[in-house]
C-alpha cells in the first residue's frame, strides 16, 4: 500500500485531533505504520481545526504537512461555508461528509468522490450527544477499506482505557456507521 | 584567591575546591584600615556584634567574653555601629 494521507476537519472541541490519533492507532493494529498530527494552531473552542493521519506499509519519514490528501473527513458540515475542505484532495480521493443530505447536493471544487453519512444522527441515537469524531472512523473504515473495524475497536478501547462505558458507546456508533455502508 | 597566592592552583573539574575551609589561609585582617577595639568593662555580653559580624571574626572565649579575631577582621565597623552600649570603638590602624 502506498502512503495514504487523511485530513480531518472539525471545530475546536469536536475531537478532530483525537480522531486522527485513534485512526493512527487503528492502522497500527492493522500492522501498518502511521503518523498523526494536528495543524499546530492555537487551539480555541469552535474555531476550524484540521488534523492529519498518514498510513503506510513502510516507515513514514515524511514530515511536511498534508497537501494532497487521499481522504477527507468533515465532521461538521457548517465548516463548508468558511473552509475549502476539498483543498488539494487527489482526484482519486474521497471526501466523507457528516450530513443527512445526499452527496449530490454538495458542490465542491473537486474531482474526488463525495460520500455523505449522517454521523450526528447515529451519535445522538447511541451516545446521546453529537460526538461524531470517533464514530466517523467506522464510516471511514467502511468507505475506504484502509483500516478494519476490528482495529478501530481496539484503538477506541486503548483511547478510552479508563472510560469503558464511553468506549462501548463509541464502538457501537462506529459500528452503526460502518454497517450503513457494509451491511 | 589565587591572584596573589603563589600556591599552585589545583585544576579540579568544575573548579571545585576539595579542601574545606580554605579561606582560613587567606588572612584578610591585612585589609583593615580601621581597627575595632572592644572595651570589656563596658561590654554587656549581649552578642549583637557577634551576630552582625559579616566575617565571623568575633568569637566567644571560655569566660563568655567576646573577642575580635584580628587575623580576619576587615575593619568594616558594623560591630561598632551596632553595639547598643558603644563598647566598641574604631581606631585608625597603625601599620
Amino acid at each position, binding site marked *: 500500500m502506498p502512503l495514504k494521507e487523511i485530513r480531518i476537519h472539525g471545530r475546536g472541541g469536536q475531537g478532530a485531533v483525537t480522531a*486522527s*490519533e485513534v485512526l*493512527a*492507532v487503528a492502522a*497500527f493494529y492493522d500492522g501498518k*505504520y*502511521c*503518523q*498523526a*498530527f*494536528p495543524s*499546530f494552531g*492555537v487551539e480555541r473552542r469552535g474555531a476550524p481545526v484540521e488534523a492529519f493521519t498518514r498510513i503506510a506499509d513502510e*516507515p*513514514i*519519514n*515524511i*514530515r*511536511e*504537512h498534508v*497537501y494532497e490528501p487521499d481522504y477527507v473527513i468533515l465532521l461538521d458540515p457548517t465548516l463548508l461555508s468558511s473552509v475549502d475542505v476539498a483543498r488539494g484532495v487527489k482526484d482519486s480521493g474521497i471526501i466523507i461528509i457528516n450530513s443527512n443530505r445526499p452527496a449530490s447536493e454538495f458542490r465542491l471544487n473537486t474531482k474526488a468522490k463525495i460520500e455523505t453519512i449522517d454521523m450526528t444522527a447515529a451519535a445522538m441515537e447511541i451516545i446521546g450527544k453529537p460526538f461524531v469524531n470517533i464514530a466517523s472512523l467506522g464510516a471511514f473504515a467502511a468507505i475506504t477499506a484502509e483500516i478494519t473495524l476490528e482495529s478501530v475497536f481496539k484503538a477506541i478501547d486503548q483511547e478510552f482505557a479508563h472510560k469503558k462505558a464511553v468506549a462501548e458507546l463509541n464502538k457501537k456508533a462506529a459500528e452503526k456507521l460502518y454497517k450503513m455502508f457494509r451491511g | *584567591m*589565587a*591572584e596573589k597566592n603563589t600556591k599552585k*592552583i589545583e*585544576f579540579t*573539574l*568544575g*573548579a*571545585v*575546591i*576539595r579542601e*574545606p*575551609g*580554605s579561606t582560613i589561609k587567606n588572612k584578610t585582617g591585612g585589609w583593615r584600615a580601621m581597627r575595632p577595639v572592644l572595651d570589656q568593662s563596658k561590654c554587656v555580653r549581649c552578642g549583637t556584634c557577634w551576630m552582625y559580624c559579616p566575617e565571623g571574626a568575633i568569637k566567644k572565649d571560655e569566660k563568655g567574653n567576646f573577642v575580635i579575631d584580628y587575623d580576619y577582621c576587615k575593619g568594616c565597623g558594623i560591630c561598632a555601629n551596632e553595639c547598643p552600649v558603644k563598647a566598641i570603638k574604631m581606631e585608625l590602624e597603625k601599620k
Partner: protein
Amino acid sequence: MPEIVVEASRAMALGVKLCKPKVIPMYPITPQTHIVEALAEMINNGELQAEMIHVESEHSACSALLGAQAAGVRTFSATSSQGLALMYEILPIISGNRMPCVMAVANRALSAPISIWNDHSDAVSARDQGWIQLWVESTQEAIDTTIQLYKICEDHSVLLPGMLCLDGFTLSHVYERAIVPEQEQVDAFLPEYKPYIKLDPEKPITMGPIAFPNSFMEFKKMQHEAMLQALKVIKNVHDEFAKQFGRAYGDGLLELYRMEDAEYALMGMGTLVGTARVVVDKLREEGQKVGLIKLRSLRPFPKGELINATKNLQGLTVIDRHISLGYEGPLFSDVRSALFESDIRINNFIAGLGGRDITQKHLRKALLSLKERREGGWLL
C-alpha cells in the same frame, strides 16, 4: 519490547522515566509542556520515584536543576523558546560546574513577533554554553537518544550537561510508532547515577568559586577538551546502545543516507531530515546521485567525520532552521569552516522559521541548487 503509537512528547517522558531521574524542576511552556505533564502524571501514579519542583520561572527551573544535580542525583527538565532564553544565565554555570544535567528542548522560534511554532533558534543560540546538543528526527530517536545522553553526559571523561533537541510540534506533537525499551534493558545499559562529586555535609567542598585571570582559561580549556572527548563517548555510547537495543543512527554523530556514490548532498538537523529522505529517494529514482547528511551532534561538532563523509561530494547544501541575523545560517558557518580545505562547493538555505513548513518542493529545490548553479537563499 512493546511497540506503541505514542505522541513524541509522551515518548520522551517514557524515555526519561526509564532513566530514573530523582529531581525534575519544571516550568511549563508550549510545546514542551506535554513532556513534563506526562512525567507529573507518572510521579503521581507512583510509576516514577522523583521529586517534581514547580518553580516560578525557567530561570529557577534551571537553577534548581543545577542545585539538585550538585546534591548528587540524576535530574531532568524541559523547555522551549523564550523559556530556554530565560535559563540562559544558568546554562554556562551548569556546564562550568561540570554537572551532567539532561534537558529536553522542544525547539521553538524566539519571539518577536510572537511565534509558538518550530524552528531551531532557541537551542542553536545556546550552542556556545558548554552543553552537548544532540538533535533528533523521530520519536524513536528521541527515546533512544535520551537514554544515550544520560550515559554520555555522566561519563567521567565528559561530565557535561546535555540538551536533547526535538522539533516542537513538528515532532513533539506527532503520534507515531515507537518501541519503548524495557526497564531491565535500560538498567543494564545505564548504570545508577554515581556523582563524580557532590555536595555532602560530611565532606564539605566548595562548588562554583571564583577563578582569577590566571586560572579561568585553563578551566575553559578543560571544558573544551571534555567536549572534544565527548565526540568519542557519543560514538561509543551510541555503538553500545545499537548493539544492545538493535537500533542505530549513523555513527551517533552523523547519520548518512544514500551517500555511497553521491555527488550532491543536503545537510540538516531534526525533522526536516525525514522529509529530505523522501526527496533523496525520489531524486535517486530519477537517476540523480544525491545523498543526505543528518547532523545529530551540533556540539561537539564532528569535524573529522564530516570531512570524511563529504570527501567525494561535488556540492553540499546546508539547511538552517535559524539565521544568525546579519550573517548566515550558523550550521552553514560551522560546516563551511570544517570543510575550508576541501574543494566542495557549499551553499546555504534558511528554511522553516517560526513554523513555516519545510516541504519536499523546498528541499528538492535546495538539493539541486548547486548542480543547477543556483545560489542559496531563503526557502519562503
